[in-house]
Structure formats: structure tokens, C-alpha cells
């Protein structure tokens, strides 16, 4: 961890870390077409919308896998989450990270908060405007070098002291890391194993 990177990132807003833009699909689209949209656009979430019936919802890989038994018959509307976690672009990353952990959520939509109190999801979205982007746990974890200080600043658990691992734990960790590297190399060399998701995000 570079002290420089850790020191100046204590309150990074979500807008600095999010993946800008969302991939949209029609709510009538089949699960298979949604899966293809994810693959072709290299995204792990798709936002399904239906203007006429005022539907909107977030679809992640887990939801797509849930439609495996009838990928051509089931629609995006059937597998989407109509009430995804939403973060404001100005919310500190630390706060969103804590909310994601608490909810076990791996993806959030980034959108401006609705300017007025409205009832109903769709009217809220009409007020907000379209989402600005998405933020995933992977996006945060992938930038821990620069974000660790900001993420650690999460209010509810910020009192935990940084723990230093005992030397024997460090040694055990080193051995584990070496084994892990060898295992991955073997897996790749062999070619029949599939230890990774598609890279390229």
C-alpha cells in the first residue's frame, strides 16, 4: 500500500470510481439475449426497461443464471431486480461499500437522488433521470491500492485498528500464495480448466 495513494483518497465520491454508463435492454428480451448483451458489451450488469409498462430493473450474472432452464422463453422482466441498491454519485465510496457489505450486494446503480418525494419506482426514475453508471464490489476491490483509506473510513466500523499479521501467519500466507500461483499456472497450462470468468472489464 503506497502511503501517498492511501493518504489522499479519504473521501472519494462514487462518481470517481464507478463504471460510467449502463447497458440497456428491452424488458421483453430473452434471457439468452441478455446474456449475449453482457458478453458482447463486456459488462456484468444490464438495465432492463419497458417504457410502455413502466418497468425498470437491474440484471446481474446471478439473475441471468437463474433463467438457465428456459433462456429463450423467459424474459428480462422475469429475472430483473426491480429494486436494486442505488448510490448517489456524490456519496463517499466508503459509505456505499459498507451498504453493499451489509446487504451482500455486489452491484449498485449510480443515479442522482430524486429531487422530490414520489411514490412508485417508475416515477422516481422519471425524476432522477437515467442512471449514470454502475459500481461493483469488483470495481472497488480492483482499486484498493488507491481506495483502501477511503473504504476503511466507512463510519460504522472505522474503529477497528489495522492488524499486523504475526510472522508465522505471514509465512503461512506466503506458502498459500505460492501454491495458489502454481495451481493457476497448472490450470492454464492444462487448458481444460476454467478458473476464471472472462477478463476484460
Amino acid at each position, binding site marked *: 500500500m503506497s502511503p501517498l495513494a492511501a493518504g489522499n483518497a479519504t473521501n472519494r465520491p462514487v462518481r470517481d470510481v464507478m463504471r460510467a454508463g449502463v447497458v440497456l435492454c428491452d424488458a421483453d428480451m430473452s434471457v439468452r439475449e441478455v446474456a449475449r448483451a453482457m458478453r458482447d458489451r463486456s459488462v456484468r450488469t444490464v438495465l432492463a426497461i419497458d417504457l410502455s409498462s413502466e418497468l425498470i430493473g437491474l440484471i446481474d450474472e446471478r439473475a441471468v443464471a*437463474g433463467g438457465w432452464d428456459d433462456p429463450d422463453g423467459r424474459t428480462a422482466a422475469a429475472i430483473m431486480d426491480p429494486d436494486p441498491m442505488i448510490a448517489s454519485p456524490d456519496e463517499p465510496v466508503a459509505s456505499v461499500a459498507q451498504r453493499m457489505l451489509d446487504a451482500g450486494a455486489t452491484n449498485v446503480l449510480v443515479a442522482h437522488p430524486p429531487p422530490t418525494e414520489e411514490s412508485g419506482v417508475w416515477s422516481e426514475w422519471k425524476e432522477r433521470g437515467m442512471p449514470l453508471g454502475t459500481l461493483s*464490489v469488483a470495481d472497488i476491490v480492483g482499486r484498493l491500492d488507491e481506495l483502501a483509506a477511503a473504504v*476503511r473510513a466507512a463510519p460504522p466500523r472505522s474503529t477497528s485498528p*489495522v492488524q499486523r499479521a504475526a510472522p508465522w501467519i505471514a509465512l503461512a500466507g506466503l506458502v*498459500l500464495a505460492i501454491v*495458489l500461483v502454481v495451481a493457476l499456472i497448472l490450470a492454464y497450462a492444462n487448458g481444460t480448466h476454467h478458473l476464471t470468468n472472462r477478463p476484460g472489464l
Partner: protein
Amino acid sequence: MEVARRMQDEGVRAIIVASAGSDLIAGVITDLDLLRAVIDGHTEAMASDIMTLEPPPSVSAGERLGSAVERLRDSGADLLVVTDGNPARPVGVLSYGDIAAHLARG
């Protein structure tokens, strides 16, 4: 935080931790585990400190995809370890992303 870097470099969301010198799976680290470790201030923690100690549910390489998907969903885990042979050895991993990618190919 080597694990975090690895995860990013490989484009994966979970990493299997193996015991030294064997095929035994010690546990799994997901991206949520990493995030929790950082929020708790354990940036210097080792893989063995933050991993889920329980080995993930497994599926045999010859099993139908349908039953694998069912097991993945019922277990609440992020991935299944795919095993093959007798005695069973881990040969790979099946994640939600893999299933989505499979549907896209169909």
C-alpha cells in the same frame, strides 16, 4: 492485498485457497470478503485470515449443468468447485458468470 491485485488481474471475483502441498481446498476468498477485510482495517491480512474456511460446495465434472445451477443457487455460494476422478480432485470452478457466458453461446 496481493489477493486483491490477483483478482483484478485475472478478472475473477473469487479465488480458491489451497493448502500447501496438496489438492485440498482450504477455503474461498470472494471480492466481498476482501472488501470486508479492508473496511475492518485488515489491509495487511493474509489470505488465511479472511477466507471463508468452509470449502465451497462441489459438483462433479460429469454432472448435468442444470443440477449444478440448482446446487449453486441453493447453497448461496458464489461458485462451485468442479471435481473429477476417483478420488475426486478439483479441476475447475463454476461461477454465475460462467453460466451466463454459456447461455450466451447457445
